[in-house]
C-alpha cells in the first residue's frame, strides 16, 4: 500500500531524513520507534505533505500513486490520515463542523453524496460513545481548551469517522494516562482491517501492549537502523536505543 524508497528530506537547510526505505502492506500495523530528533515526526509530516520540508530525493507511492505529487488535501482524500502529535486549536470553529466538512470533502472526491446533518450527528454520536467522549465535544471549538488527552482522543475520533486506508499516528500515546491509552488503543484496533494499514510513531513500548504491531522499525539519524517483529520493541525497552546504534556500528 505504501512504499517509501530512499526518501531524503531537509528543513531549514538541515538534513533530517537520510534515506528511508519502508514497505507497508494492507492489513499491517507498523510501529516506528526511535529517540528524540531521529526524524520520526518529520517522516509523518512529509508523508502528509507539510510544505515546510524540502524533499531532496527518493520516491513514495501510495496505492500505486506518486504520493509526493499530491497536495496535502488530496492525500487526505485519497485515504491518508495523520493523527497529530500536537493537535492545533482553531478557536470558534466547531469541532463537529470541521469533521463534517472533512468527511464530505472526502466523500465528494470519491463521488459519493454528502452526508446531511442528521446522518452525521447520528454517526458521530455513535463514534463518540465508542471513544467514551462526552457530548459536550459536539459544541466545543476544534481542540479549544481540550486537555492533552482530550486532544488525542479527538484525533482518534476523527480517524474513526474518516476511516482512512492508512493512518499515521504521531505519538498519539504521549501524555495519556493508562485509561485514556486503552481507549485510544481500542479506537485504533477497531479500525484494523485487511484493507487498511496503521503506522504508529512512538517513543515507548507501552502503546504496543495494546496495539500489537506486525513490524517494528527503529529510526535514528534519519535512517531505519533495524526492523523486526514485536519482540524488537521489548528488546528496545530493555536495552535502549544506544544498543541498536552500537549493534549497527558493530
Amino acid at each position, binding site marked *: 500500500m505504501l512504499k517509501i524508497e530512499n526518501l531524503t528530506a531537509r528543513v531549514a537547510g538541515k538534513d533530517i531524513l537520510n534515506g528511508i526505505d519502508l514497505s507497508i502492506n494492507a492489513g499491517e500495523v507498523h510501529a516506528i520507534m526511535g529517540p528524540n530528533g531521529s526524524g520520526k515526526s518529520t517522516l509523518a509530516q512529509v508523508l502528509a505533505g507539510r510544505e515546510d520540508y524540502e524533499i531532496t530525493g527518493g520516491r513514495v507511492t501510495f496505492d500505486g500513486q506518486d504520493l509526493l505529487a499530491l497536495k496535502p*488535501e488530496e492525500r487526505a482524500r485519497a485515504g491518508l490520515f495523520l493523527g497529530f502529535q500536537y493537535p492545533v486549536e*482553531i478557536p470558534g470553529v466547531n469541532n463537529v463542523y470541521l469533521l463534517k466538512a472533512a468527511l464530505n470533502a472526502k466523500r465528494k472526491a470519491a463521488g459519493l453524496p454528502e452526508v446531511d446533518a442528521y446522518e452525521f450527528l447520528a454517526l458521530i454520536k455513535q463514534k463518540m460513545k465508542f471513544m467514551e467522549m462526552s457530548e459536550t465535544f459536539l459544541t466545543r471549538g476544534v481542540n479549544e481548551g481540550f486537555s492533552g488527552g482530550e486532544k488525542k482522543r479527538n484525533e482518534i475520533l476523527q480517524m474513526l469517522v474518516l476511516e482512512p486506508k492508512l493512518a499515521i499516528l504521531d505519538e498519539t500515546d504521549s501524555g495519556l494516562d493508562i485509561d485514556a491509552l486503552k481507549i485510544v488503543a481500542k479506537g485504533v484496533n477497531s479500525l484494523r482491517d485487511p484493507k487498511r494499514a496503521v503506522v504508529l510513531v512512538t517513543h515507548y513500548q507501552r502503546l504496543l501492549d495494546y496495539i500489537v504491531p506486525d513490524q517494528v522499525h527503529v529510526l535514528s539519524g534519519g535512517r531505519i537502523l533495524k526492523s523486526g517483529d514485536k519482540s524488537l520493541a521489548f528488546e528496545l525497552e530493555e536495552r535502549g536505543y544506544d544498543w541498536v546504534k552500537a549493534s549497527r556500528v558493530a
Partner: protein
Amino acid sequence: MASKPSEVEALIGQKYRHGFVTDIESDSLPPGLNEDVVAAISRKKNEPQFLLDWRLEAYRHWQTMQEPTWAHVHYKPIDYQDISYYSAPRAPVNAPKSLDEVDPKLLATYAKLGIPLHERARLAGVAVDAVFDSVSVATTFKDKLAKAGVIFCSFSEAVHNHPELIEQYLGSVVPAGDNFFAALNSAVFSDGSFVYVPRGVRCPMELSTYFRINAAKTGQFERTLIIAAEGATVSYLEGCTAPMRDENQLHAAVVELVALDDATIKYSTVQNWYPGDENGIGGIYNFVTKRGECRGRNAKISWTQVETGSAITWKYPSCVLKGEGSIGEFYSVAVANHYQQADTGTKMIHVGRNTKSTIVSKGISAGHAENTYRGQVKILPSAEGARNFTQCDSLLMGGACAAHTFPYMEVKNPTATVEHEASTSKIGEDQLFYCLQRGITAEDAVNMIVSGFCKVVFKELPMEFAVEAQNLLCVSLEGSVG
C-alpha cells in the same frame, strides 16, 4: 503555505460582485460647494427655515475646519469643489407612492444586489427604506409599523411630517460642528432614514436600509436619526454597496442615536462599499460619524459592524453613556484586503454612574492592507462604578499587510474598572495544515478559520444578516492564505 504566492494571489483576486452602473437620468447639481449650493439643496427639498439655517451654520463652521490627519490612512487630497452634492434619480412624479411606481431599472439594481424590497423577498419581515443616491425611493411595511406607532421614513419625509422631532433631536448627539466630515454632512446632507419608536413600544420587526452610491462623482451624505423613547426597543440594520468606478467617491454620513430611559437600540452595519481594485485604484472613501447617546437610565446602545468594503474607512461608532446604569456595546469585524485602509474603532464615554461598556474588535488584514483599531474609553469623574471591557484581536493573512492597535484610555474616577485584552495572530500554518490534512481545501479552511475568529461578533448580528456577513467575508478574503 507562504511558499506559493502565485496561487494565493490568484485566489485573492476575487472580483467585486456588485460592480455595475444603473443608467438612469440624474437630476444633479453641478460640482462645487458654496452657500448657494447649500441653499439649493434645502430648496430642492422644500425644507423649513430652521433646517436651512442649521445647514448654513454648519457650512460656515466647516469652512473654518481642517480635514483631520490623525487617522492611519493615506490618500490624495480631496477636492471638495469637484464633487456634486446632490443627485436624485428623475422620477415621473415627485415620489413614488408604491413599488409599482419605482423605476424598474432601479428595482433591477436592487435585485442584482439581492436587496429584499418585496414582502415576499428573502428577508421577509424586514422593512427596507432604500436610499438610492440621495432620495428614498421605496419604503415597505409602513402600515404595520404605523400601527405600532413606529415612525420609519426617509429623513426628508420626517422633516415635513415631524419637524418638531427633527428640530428637537437633529444634531443633539453629533453637533453640526463636531468634526470636519460631520460638519460637511450637516451642510449638504440630502436624505437618509428616520426612526422614532414611541414609549414602551418594541418595534415589531427589524428595520433595514440599504445605501447605494450610483451616480459618478457624487458624494453621498446621508443622515440617519433614530430615537427610542422610554422603554422602547429597536433593531436597525444598514447595508451598503456601491458600483465599481475608477475615481474615488466620498461618503460622509452621520448617524445619531438617542436612547431614553430603559430604551434599547441595536444598530448593525454590513458595509460592502466598493473597495477599489487589486491595485488600489478607485473605491469609496468612507468617512462616517456614528454616535449614540444613552440619555436615560438603563438605556442600551449596541453597535455591530462588519466592514469589508471601502478603499478607506474612517469610522468610530461611539456611545455616550449619560444615564445611570446605561450600557454601550461595540462589536466589530473589519476586513482589509489588497490596498484597503481601515481606521476604525469606537469611543465609549462614561458619564453616568454604574455605566458599562463592552468593546470587541476583530481586525483581519490581507494583501497590502492596513487595518487599524482606534478606540477610546473615557471615564469621567461622575462615572462612579463604571466598567469597561475591551478586546481587540487582529488576524494577519500574508506578510505584506499590517495591523495596528491604538487604545486610548482616560480614567478619571478611581472606582472604575477598565480591562483591555489584545492579540495579534497570523492565520496559523498549523491551523491551515490541520484542515488540509483532513481533506478540506485551502479556501474552505481559511473561511472556516476566519469565521471562527469572528464568531463572537457575528453572534450579535440578526440571524439573516449573520449569514450574509459570513458570505461577504468569504468573498472578500477568498484564498487570502498566509
